[in-house]
């Protein structure tokens, strides 16, 4: 293959970026990072639903709000204490509203503690000022301590609110996912569903315990600072306010650019990841075709592209802070300059100027912070919306009120004129008619996509038929309780699925109330007993990570044992032996044969050798039964089955 251009590579691997969610580090660098989650479509509705989850914590929230106010006010007031202190030292009196009030409080306290203070300081000339200073520092200390305590309590309370909220959201979501029909998982890939639990719920949590607090306390600080500034000096306030739009516009311009580059960076990162993933999986192929050098070159192209975009993204993300900082220095200088003039011309005191300068500096901070937090809130709301969308998805239809239990089911299965499609406009099965008497073995043969597995999906009520009917013991399966019906159908699928736990626990999955003896009996039926006894800890051997410590054949034997344990009269074997070699299959078949005894069995198989002793074989093609009969009948017909059997036709 000739070397591809960067454009080709981006096109072919770029799709990866959108399908494969790249998890951002929380608080990823730069303002653009928070925008990944997208915008909520109906914010109002989502907020209302979120509030439902927060509702149990109303009491907490009121306290949080109070503590938040307290901590904001203490920080503002504590700062203002500086004004009278400095002015006293300069031998003046602060003339501003809050200044006079603060001065009054300090003086009153000093007078209250006068005897103690003066006994320490003696009656020197500086004693008056020193006493004032000590009192002021003492008061500041108290104010700030109160502030610290309030902040501590507020964040603790808020954490319990947010964690409690997302716990119940996660619970509801998980419960909902369990109740969802198989159809839902066809449409939503596993990764997507997982991401609801991880990314989206996490975002909601972050928003609750971080952004909400920041937003509210930021607004309170903003308003408080503004009030304090106006009462200190309205002329200077005007000067400060004048600069704000200039800041925010500059900031937004940079943020916009960096967001653009962050997006590009994400796409480039996705392409690089996709390329690495593919080449690592395809390592052997690359080596056999001597493609190492070409891959290196192509990777170089993608990597270089990533470098460029990453540079720009980080550059714009990184200069944001310094530029904003420097601009605010300019406004600071101008404010102080104007303040100096005011000081010279009016009664404006140095203490008031100091305090004001501090306020003017912190005034722009909440504004920047607020806009950053808003993006977090938006992405959290978008996440919440996706979470709620899952919660609103249609669950499995509830059982009919008169649904009946399925005790003593014999397993007489009939399908009458069943027509079905996963999509209403794409029919998969056409007019399927068949029956299986208790204990009979029915086999399905046909190409991939012919509808074999669909039949068993319908039997299990993973999907409900809309046309035609399926009956078991002459009762429509939709009239049984769904749980009861499924209890009466045992399945052995091609994909063995084992859970982390002991061998015994895994077999017991077939019927939870089975005794140890029953488990072992089932294992014997499945021809699994002998290999289990050879395992290091026998039945107590722990199976890890979907049974990677067992061979494919052994895993399948455990699955069969699981099915053997259940007393279900109906058994479905869906390609149960396809993924093992023919010799292992022979071994498994002994177990299967014993398992099938006395059970109505539906077998789906690719290998025709596994179906030849069935009572009836259905040859499916494009959702229709084109031939039926037992092995010898079908061979005699010299039709499709004969073709398949003799290898004259293609089975893909």
């Amino acid at each position, binding site marked *: 293959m000739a070397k591809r251009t960067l454009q080709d590579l981006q096109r072919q691997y770029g799709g990866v970026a959108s399908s494969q969610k790249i998890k951002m580090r929380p608080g990823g660098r730069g303002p653009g990072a928070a925008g990944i989650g997208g915008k909520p479509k109906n914010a109002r509705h989502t907020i209302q639903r979120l509030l439902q989850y927060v509702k149990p914590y109303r009491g907490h929230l009121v306290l949080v709000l109070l503590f938040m106010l307290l901590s904001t006010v203490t920080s503002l007031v504590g700062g203002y204490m500086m004004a009278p202190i400095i002015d006293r030292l300069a031998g003046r009196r602060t003339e501003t509203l809050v200044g006079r009030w603060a001065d009054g409080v300090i003086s009153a306290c000093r007078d209250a503690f006068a005897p103690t203070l003066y006994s320490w300081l003696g009656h020197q000339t500086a004693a008056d000022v020193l006493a004032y200073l000590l009192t002021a520092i003492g008061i500041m200390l108290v104010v700030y301590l109160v502030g610290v305590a309030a902040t501590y309590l507020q964040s603790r309370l808020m954490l319990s609110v947010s964690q409690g909220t997302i716990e119940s959201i996660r619970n509801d979501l998980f419960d909902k996912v369990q109740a969802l029909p198989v159809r839902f998982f066809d449409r939503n890939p596993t990764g997507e569903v997982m991401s609801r639990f991880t990314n989206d719920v996490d975002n909601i949590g972050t928003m609750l315990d971080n952004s909400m607090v920041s937003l509210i306390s930021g607004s309170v600080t903003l308003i408080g600072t503004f009030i304090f500034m106006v009462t200190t000096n309205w002329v200077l306030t005007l000067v400060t306010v004048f600069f704000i739009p200039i800041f925010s516009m500059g900031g937004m311009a940079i943020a916009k650019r960096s967001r653009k580059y962050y997006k590009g960076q994400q796409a480039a990162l996705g392409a690089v990841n996709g390329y690495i993933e593919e080449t690592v999986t395809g390592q*052997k*192929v690359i080596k056999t075709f001597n493609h190492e050098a070409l891959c290196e070159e192509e990777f170089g192209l993608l990597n270089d592209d990533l470098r460029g975009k990453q540079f720009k993204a980080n550059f714009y993300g990184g200069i944001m802070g310094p530029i904003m900082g420097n601009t605010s220095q300019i406004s600071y200088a101008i404010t102080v300059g104007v303040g100096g003039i005011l000081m010279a011309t009016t009664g404006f005191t140095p203490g008031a100027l100091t305090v004001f300068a501090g306020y003017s500096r912190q005034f722009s901070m909440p504004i920047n912070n607020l806009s950053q937090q808003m993006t977090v809130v938006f992405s959290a709301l978008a996440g919440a919306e996706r979470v709620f969308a899952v919660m609103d998805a249609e669950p499995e239809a509830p059982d009919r009120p008169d649904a009946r239990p399925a005790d003593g089911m014999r397993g007489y299965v009939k399908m009458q004129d069943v027509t079905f499609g996963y999509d209403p406009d794409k029919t998969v099965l056409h007019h399927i008619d068949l029956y299986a008497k208790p204990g009979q073995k029915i086999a399905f043969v046909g190409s991939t996509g012919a509808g074999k597995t669909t039949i068993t999906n319908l039997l299990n009520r993973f999907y409900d038929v809309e046309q035609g009917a399926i009956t078991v013991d002459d009762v429509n399966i939709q009239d049984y309780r769904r749980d009861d019906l499924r209890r009466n159908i045992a399945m052995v699928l091609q994909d063995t699925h084992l859970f982390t736990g002991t061998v015994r626990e895994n077999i017991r999955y077939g019927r939870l109330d089975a005794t140890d003896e029953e488990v072992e009996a089932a294992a014997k039926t499945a021809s699994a007993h002998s290999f289990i006894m050879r395992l290091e800890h026998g039945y107590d051997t722990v199976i890890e990570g979907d049974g990677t410590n067992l061979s494919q054949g052994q895993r399948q034997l455990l699955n069969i044992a699981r099915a053997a344990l259940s007393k279900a009269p109906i058994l479905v074997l869906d390609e149960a032996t396809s993924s093992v070699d023919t010799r292992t299959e022979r071994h498994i078949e002994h177990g299967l044969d014993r398992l099938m005894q006395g059970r109505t069995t539906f077998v789906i198989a690719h290998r025709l050798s596994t179906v030849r002793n069935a009572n009836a074989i259905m040859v499916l093609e494009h959702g229709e039964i084109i031939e039926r009969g037992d092995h010898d009948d079908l061979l005699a017909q010299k039709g499709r089955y004969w073709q398949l059997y003799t290898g004259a*036709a*293609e089975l*893909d």
Partner: protein
Amino acid sequence: MVLQKNVLFSGTIEENLRWGDENATMEEIRKAADYAQADKFVTTFTNGYQTDLGQGGSNVSGGQKQRLCIARALLKHPKILILDDSTSAVDTATEAMIRKAFAEELPGTTKIIIAQRIGSVRDADQIVVMDNGRVTGIGTHAQLLANNTEYQEIYYSQTDRKEA
């Protein structure tokens, strides 16, 4: 070498086949695909050889993937061709056609075939039976069937039971 785990890469079918020979002409590509019984299905795609395979070749079926991998290997014009379980998802009839093409069109290429299906190897000049890392028998199909129990066991497990 064609491996059991076939890996195709993002890109078009043509680009993937060109892994075998960068400078192959379109005729050469189609010929290789034809030997591998891939040309027929590729030409049914709307974009033919320009069809995008998607990551890991997710747009084609397992059997089709295997046939494309064989075509890719053929384009390399190798002196030795190793097929490691490379037709496991291809049905027996198509597999037979691939084998026939190999025999007729690539007589000078040494072919090493690794397979589970007896059908895939029964025409081989020499069959090596292995079990647990040991060679338990070497010979032609007829020879092994006559005197190798392992081979018999495998053979009968794949053919009619009446013979077992």
